[in-house]
Structure formats: C-alpha cells, structure tokens
C-alpha cells in the first residue's frame, strides 16, 4: 500500500510550514512535561510549581469570575430555577430579572437551540446599546456578528480579504500571533510595521506609510491595517490624536481598519483612556461610507476574564450589502456561536448600573480586579527595570509586560549552539530554573537584534514577590554566566 494519505509531507503547507503560535508552543509543552515531573517525582526540580505567565488566562490563575454574570448564566442554563421559590434566596433580584428578560428574547426560551447566525437579535440589541452608550455614537444590531471568542471573527476577515499570496495585511510588530498565524493559514502576506519601543511602543504614521509603500513596490496589494489597542504584547494605549491619524491614513490609502479592542477594559494609567476606533472615526466626521472598519471585542479579557466561555463579537461598519451577505454566509456555515458566550457578551457590554441590586458588589469586584492588575503591572515593571540589561516599558493596558533583555554575546552564541533563538534559550533556562513560563519575544516579532519575553501580570498578587525574587536570582545567575 502507498504511503498514508494524510502524512506531514502531504498536508496543507500553509498549516505545516507557515503557521506558528508561540503562546502555546514549545516552551509551554516543555513546561507541561516538567509539571508532570513535579507530580511524579516531587522535589526533583529547583522549584515546586509551574507558574504559567505565558497566556492571558486570568481565571486559571485564581481570578474570580464576576458574580452577577455567573448568576445570570446559571439561570439561563437551567431556566427551571426561575420557577422555584428557593431561587430568590440564592440569586440576586437583578440577576433573576436579567435572566428572565434574556430568556424572553430567545425564541422558545431555548438556550440549546442554534440561534440566528449573527447571534440572538435581542442580545445584539443590548450590545449595540452598550456600544452606543460607551461611544456616544449609534450602533446597529445588524452590524454585529457574535463569534466563539474574537479569534474566529479575525479568521473570517482574513479569509474574506486574502485572495492569494500577493494580498498583504499590515500588522504591528510586535503583534499577538493570531494575526501572523491567520495570515499564513489563509495564504496572504504579512506586511510589518514596527512599533517604536523607545517612545513607549508608539505608532508612527511615517513608518506605516513607508512599510505600505515598500510593500506596494514589491507588488503586494495591501488590503487592511491591524491595530491592537490596548496593545498585545506591548500594552500601550494609543493617544487619541494617534488614532485620528490612523483613521485618516486608512481612509486615504483605501485600507480596511481591523481594530482589535479586546483589552478595552484593561487600562491602568490615569492619563490615558480607551477610545474605540469607531468613536474616533465618527468624531472626526467620518461616516460609514468613508471607512470600512471591523472592531473586535471579547469576553476573555477586561475584568471578567471569561476565556473558557469563548464569547466575543465583531462590529462591521462601512461594508456594502453584497459583502455583508458574504460575511453572513460564511458565519452561517458554522450555524452560530455558543449561546452562553453570546449571553455573556451582552452582559459585558451591559453590566449592572447604579441603582441595580448587584451594582455595589459588582463594582467592588470590578474595581478590586482592575486595581490589583494595575498594582501587579507596576510591581513587575519596576522589578524588570531593576535588573541588569533589562528595560521594560510600562503596561498602560492589556495584561502583559514585554521587557527588552539585552543578551550578552556569549548567551547569543550559546543559544545558536543549542539551535534556539536567543530569547527562546533565555526563556527555556528561566523555566528550568524557576518554573516560570513566559513566551519568547520572537513569538511576537521584534526589531532584529533585540530580544524580549512576554510575561503576563496575572499570577495572584501574593505570588508576585516570590516571582520577582526568583526571576531576579535566575537573571543574575544567567548574566554572571554569560556576561561579556
């Protein structure tokens, strides 16, 4: 019999060769092996737990879900509860009434049924109202597509936009590698634009323009610009004037603006606030016709951190009806996104308000989480900056720190000898000495010759001092070993 039909040498090369995703890549798999080793042979390693700082997965590290949201979801999962007297003493009154009204908006109160392929209409109405209230500009339920997390929406847009390897998408470097992976999977060209580390990861329009023109001169048809705001892994929050320049740039160059805004509720500095690109565009006087814009939001981040629910949406504006039909058609092949995620997205965009029974406890939970994140961001940033050869930009938002590590030449050579990228080599040594799992900067892209790691700010606050001290010991020993 001939060689097996499905073997690596005859798989889709876009999958095998081109597509990488370091957030759950090699270092993480090694960490999982070490974790098993800790279970089977306790004491065999210089640390007694693995600390996963590689992925923005807050609840896996002890962050608690928002009580009100879970109350509503539980009631929607098992609506029979609403008929029982005991429910009133177990659930808050506004959770009961919210669940009741959500169920009323679902045909047949059937949370187990496939919904409309864009998501349940009543929930989209709530989300549109939430967007309008956030931005001060109207939003339309028909522009919203609820998806299993924000990532499937990104894939859909890449699929729509990329026809062949000559279609390019401008992506920030460093970027969240969903974008590079998705572009590779769909056979397109990633056109990088570099964020400026020395100016707090600023975005220079002049660099954007240069990259665009370079790409075009090579025959690349650049179709869209990805902006991640707040940034991942870089954590910067764009200034409004910067956003205005970006909007104008897209309009002038005929680019679709893909605005990844999943960290919109993670802002840790007082001098910056989140402005959606939609709000910026409308405030500039740009209507739908001026700018095709896709805005992504998720239930995975913020203060709610509900990664496992896979909830999110994209709001698409500025697209013609025939194009919207195509987007709908692609969405319909998967029938619909999971209903729990849809409900959660409507809750995130429409949380308890002043006067609601749950407002005080909701606000306390929210503030508690966000303030703690801000403290952890600062503590880790300061710790990194105090280490030899490391400079770390502030995390103004999102969930990550992306310190720049000036690796000595000897370390770079040792890495080469071990057939690893220098930052991967560093990250692996860090893991083996301390149990701390980070993602090497090469997984996100960086200016050649610079090295970074991405570390989340998510471990519980009481663990942070130990993480800092373990990291410090490791780094000092590493530098002692490899210093020039």
């Amino acid at each position, binding site marked *: 019999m001939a060689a097996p039909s499905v073997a690596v040498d005859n798989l889709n090369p876009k999958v095998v060769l081109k597509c990488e995703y370091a957030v759950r890549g090699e270092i993480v798999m090694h960490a999982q092996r070490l974790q098993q080793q800790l279970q089977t042979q306790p004491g065999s390693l210089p640390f007694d737990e693995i600390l996963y700082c590689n992925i923005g997965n807050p609840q896996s590290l002890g962050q608690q879900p928002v009580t009100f949201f879970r109350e509503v979801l539980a009631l929607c999962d098992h609506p029979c509860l609403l008929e029982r007297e005991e429910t009133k003493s177990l659930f808050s009154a506004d959770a009961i009434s919210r669940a009741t009204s959500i169920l009323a908006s679902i045909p047949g109160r059937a949370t187990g049924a*496939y919904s409309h392929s864009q998501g349940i209409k009543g929930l989209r109405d709530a989300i549109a109202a939430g967007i309008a209230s956030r931005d001060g500009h109207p939003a339309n339920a028909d522009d919203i597509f609820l998806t299993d997390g924000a990532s499937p929406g990104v894939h859909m847009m890449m699929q729509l936009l990329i*026809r062949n390897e000559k279609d390019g998408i401008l992506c920030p470097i460093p970027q969240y590698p969903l974008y590079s992976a998705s572009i590779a999977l769909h056979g397109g060209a990633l056109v990088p634009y570099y964020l400026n580390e020395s100016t707090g990861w600023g975005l220079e329009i002049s660099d954007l323009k240069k990259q665009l023109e370079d790409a075009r001169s090579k025959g690349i048809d650049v179709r869209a610009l990805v902006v991640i705001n707040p940034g991942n892994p870089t954590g910067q929050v764009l200034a409004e004037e910067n956003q205005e320049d970006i909007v104008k740039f897209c309009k002038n160059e005929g680019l679709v603006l893909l605005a990844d805004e999943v960290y919109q509720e993670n802002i840790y500095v007082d001098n910056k606030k989140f402005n959606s690109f939609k709000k910026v565009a409308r405030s500039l006087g740009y209507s739908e016709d001026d700018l095709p814009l896709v805005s992504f939001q998720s239930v995975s981040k913020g203060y709610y951190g509900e990664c496992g629910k896979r909830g999110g949406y994209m709001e698409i504006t500025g697209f013609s009806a025939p194009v919207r039909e195509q987007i709908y058609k692609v969405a319909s092949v998967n029938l619909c996104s999971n209903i729990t995620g849809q409900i959660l997205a409507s809750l995130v965009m429409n949380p308890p308000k002043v006067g609601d029974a749950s407002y005080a406890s909701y606000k306390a939970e929210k503030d508690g989480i966000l303030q703690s994140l801000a403290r952890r961001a600062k503590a880790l940033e300061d710790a990194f900056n105090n280490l030899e050869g490391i400079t770390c930009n502030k995390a103004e938002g999102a969930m990550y720190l992306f310190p720049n590590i000036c690796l000595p030449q000897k370390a770079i050579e040792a890495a080469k000898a071990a057939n690893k990228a220098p930052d991967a080599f560093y990250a692996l040594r860090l893991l083996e000495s301390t149990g701390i799992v980070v993602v090497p900067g090469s997984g996100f892209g960086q200016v050649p010759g610079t090295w970074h790691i991405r570390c989340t700010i998510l471990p519980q606050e009481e663990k942070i001092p130990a993480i800092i001290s373990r990291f410090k010991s490791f780094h000092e020993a590493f530098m002692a070993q490899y210093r020039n």
Partner: protein
Amino acid sequence: MFGGGGRKPLDYDELNENVKKVQYAVRGELYLRASELQKEGKKIIFTNVGNPHALGQKPLTFPRQVVALCQAPFLLDDPNVGLIFPADAIARAKHYLAMAPGGLGAYSDSRGIPGVRKEVAEFIQRRDGYPSDPELIYLTDGASKGVMQMLNTIIRNERDGILVPVPQYPLYSAAISLFGGSLVPYYLEEEANWGLDFVNIRQTVASARSKGITVRAMVIINPGNPTGQCLSQGNIKELLSFCFQENLVLLADEVYQQNIYQDERPFISARKVLFDMGPPMSREVQLVSFHTVSKGYWGECGQRGGYFEMTNLPPKTVDEIYKVASIALSPNVPGQIFMGLMVNPPKPGDISYLKFAAESKSILESLRRRARLMTDGFNSCRNVVCNFTEGAMYSFPQIRLPQRAIDAARRAGKAADVFYCLKLLEATGISTVPGSGFGQKEGVFHLRTTILPAEEDMPAIMSSFKNFNDSFMDQYDDGSSYSRM
C-alpha cells in the same frame, strides 16, 4: 493601481473567490425568505435545520443542573443547594470543576479538558469494545469546527479532491470551496435505500484521477444527512476496504449515532468495523470520526460541543492538527462539560437516572414515531416518493415535478425544487431546504425537512403539505405519466 480612491478592498469584486463560491443552503435562500415572512407576521414552521430545541424539544434536566452549578460554583457553598439540586448533579458538578482548574472561565488545554477526553475514550471503548486513546481525541466547538480543521489540514490546492456523498450535508461542500479543494461526488442510490454503489464510486475516482485530481479523503455520513440511511456492517467493511485500496482517509461523520429508528441496522462505528477487520487494515487505514452534543436525543445545538477521534494518523500529522487547534486557544468549556455528560450519563442506581432515562426514552420514541409519520405522510402524496428515515433527523422526499412546473421555475429564474419549496413556504409557512442544496442526480428533485416539529403538530403539518402538494400538482401536472429519469 494600488492606493486610495476608486476600488476598495472590501468591494464585492475584491473578495476572496473561494468565499464567493461557498454555498450553504441550510441557511440560504429559503431560510432568508422564511425569516422575511416571519417578520411580516406569517407563522413559519422552521424545518430547515436539525435544531430540536427550537421546535419545542426540552433539554434533558440533569446536564442543565450540572452545568448551572459549574457556572455558579458559589451555589455549591450554599447550605440550601440540596433543596433544588439532586445530590448526583452536585457531585458531578464538583467532578467537572475539579477537572477544570480555573473553572468554566479559563481556557482549557487546546485539545479539551483531559478528564473529559478520558470520559470520551471510555465511552468509545464501551461502545466498540476496543480501547481508545484520549490523546487522539480533540474536543471542538461543535463537530463542524473539527470537520473544518481536518479539511483545512488535508487540502493543499485545487487538485486535492475529497469524495463526498451526494446528497450530502453542505458543510462538506462549503468547507471544500473555502479551502480551495475539489469536491468529487459519489452518488447514493435512492432506489436502493440510498445505498453505496462501489462500481460507480470506483469509476468516479478513476475519472477524477484522469483529470489530475489527487483524491485524498472520503466522507461518509452515518446515519446519513439528509438521507437518513443506516449503514450495515457489510457496507462499512466495503467502505474501509475501498479506502485501504485507494489510499484515502475516511472521514466518518457519526453525529446521528443515537438517532436510529429501525432495529435491523443498529449503529456500528467505522472504528469498530475497522478493528474487527484486523491487521493489516486495522493498523493502516486512516480514520477520523466525528460526534456532537447537538443531535441524538440531547439536541444541545447551542452549546457547540463536539469531538473528533483520530485513528492511524502519524504522530507528526497529529502535531500539526494540535498546532491548528492551539491557535483557536480552546473549545468552549461549558460545551466540553456537555460532551462529558453525554458520554458519561447517569447510570442505573444514580438519583437522577430514572428521570434521565425517561426523558431520553420519550424523546427517542417520539422521534421514531415522527420518522414513520412523516415518511408515510409523504408517501401518501401525489408524485411524492419518500425513503424511510432510518436514522438522523430528516426526511428527504423526492418530488416528481411535472414538466410544466419545471418550465415555470425556469421562467422564474429558479431551480425547480427551489421554486417548489418557495411556493410551499408561501402557502403553508413550512420552511424546508430544496434538494439542490444537498446535491441530487440531474433532473431528480427533493426537499429536506426535519422530523422535529412536535408530535401533536405533525398531523396538521402533513395535511397542510398534502393540500399544498395536491393544488400544486393540479396546477402543473399535465396528466401524462411520469417516468423517473
């Protein structure tokens, strides 16, 4: 040529052609028209998609109790929780929460929670009598996502062909279009109960190869969708031998394995048949099997829970599939718990067992009655012939459209079965999917409806259909005898 002004990147002409080629009739023209009519106030009976809860089937109680408790673990701390949740639901919620550190709100392993995958492996072992490896079971957001991932991995370019049954569930044709591959159709034989004809299939493969197509995989849907036939062990053996000889990976869509309405051919999995065949085939034939929580008697479509199991795939291939899964981070956790509950339901002796068994039995027996009702109802209509729905959730009657109807359809710019289904919709509110959405032989027309409307509504629905069909045939029948092409 490039740059602003004029042509915009998201103008219709500038879209990925593969996207434009995609068709998915299940939520296509008929469904959109039905939705419009519904907005105008017309009562619509949606039988276009296998969506049981939308037509009044109630969720099973036990899984909803367990997931509600997992969703709001603070309930488990309340001393009164035992008043409204049975002890076994409480225990099971704790069981799943222990498996999912971080609870329902954390990304799990990209392949799914290991403990749930183990439950799936144990289910497969009990079902088939052969051990199953949890490492080769990946949970997905519905079976469809798994199908998409596999086809994306296999299809390299337009010369890669995938054998797909006709009629088929149009996820397959849509996915093949999206990934730029070639659909190689093999026709099921309607007169032979939608049976497989391997002589024809061999010819089809040879013909595709002569056109430069490399046939890589074969899709089988068992029980069939839309056709409902249940394959015999002999059928499946022949299929596997064929795949062995022709070097194809078999993609076995087994999502309807709980929906069996006759006793002659109970469900038997492709994997069991493969292992029964012994070496060399049992070690060589590559197989991917798909299952879901959306169908069966669970019908939990909205949860988006599914899995695929890989058999005889080389480790490096599995690594690549893992890589693709990891970009999606993880399947939704509540859906994973539904899957765990489905493969590991209450057992005799459990507090919730009797209620669970009664609910399940009631749904399955009703489906069996409705399958018969609908088949008989269609067969009693003029110019309609309908194979029995042996399994799955659909009825796929053949409508022998008179020539004058076909001509009228052409004048209206519509495929003949689309024309019929639109008229049916407008007259009765019954929203179906025309057979052309699934594929059929040239000149033979069908529609697909589900057997899911509530049992008490069935007689009225069938009589409404019959009345419509009678007047349609009165209008268009030319009285001459109709011979099947």
